[in-house]
């Protein structure tokens, strides 16, 4: 699998570290809703098709990325810096 880093260009997946689902939203830190925290920590949708996820380019520029990847085919439709996605409210929580 090749991920096209916005800074480094196309690189093999061995240079990257998976950092998890980029769609989950952390509950309010003051919340005591056990079900919400349980869902945040454990529940994952595992959809077949496009999925937004965090990757760290640990073997390159060391930036966190948000990658949209097809879970069935591994086709990557978009890659961007996580800081930009988080700033725009589209990236979920920080990894």
């Amino acid at each position: 699998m090749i991920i096209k880093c916005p800074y480094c260009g196309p690189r093999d997946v061995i240079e990257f570290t998976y950092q998890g689902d980029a769609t989950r939203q952390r509950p309010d830190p003051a919340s005591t809703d056990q079900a919400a925290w349980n869902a945040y920590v454990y529940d994952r949708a595992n959809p077949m098709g496009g999925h937004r996820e965090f990757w760290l380019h640990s073997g390159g520029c060391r930036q966190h990325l948000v990658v949209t990847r097809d879970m069935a085919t591994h086709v990557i439709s978009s890659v961007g810096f996580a800081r930009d996605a988080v700033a725009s409210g589209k990236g979920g929580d920080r990894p």
Partner: protein
Amino acid sequence: MAEPQSPLGHTFVPGDHGNSAGGIGLVLTERRDVSIVQVTAWRGTIPAVLTAIGDVTGLNLADKPGAGRSAGEKSAFGFAPGRYFVVAPSADLEDRLRRAIPLETGTIIDLTHGRTAIRVKGPWSEWVLSKLFAIDFSEHGFPVGFGRATLHHDIHANIQRTDAETFDLYVFRTFARSFWQTLGHAAAEVGYRVE
């Protein structure tokens, strides 16, 4: 400051090695006399950091991914957003950068003792480095002056192309001896000289 003790130790053997009877395809050297400094800009201060690097080294960098320049033993290149390697054969490089880049503009880390600088020069440099790193070493994909950050297995390396057939590699000092030996194995096919 220059590091008087090379981590390459007994594995640094000057002379011709590998298939040298067929010619010398590569010359490998360790650059011991350079200071290596990382400069990191804050968000929004990249133009000021690039100006400061230019003032200190005379190397004016473009603000685009991997852009760099070299002149003689001096070089500078970007390897991540807002992060730059600056290399020069002067012991006061860190001090001069620190004076030019206040904390409000960026941060300075002297990596001289943490990295080993290896120069790979020769007509087979692209061929041999392509065995070790999964990036495009052609001049089209890796232009002169530009830098890259990548891996050889788990050994992180910063690489800058300084001319058509010369690459400067910066590897972690503690991995440098192992990497140097691997580089020698990769270069044996084309014959190489250690200087």
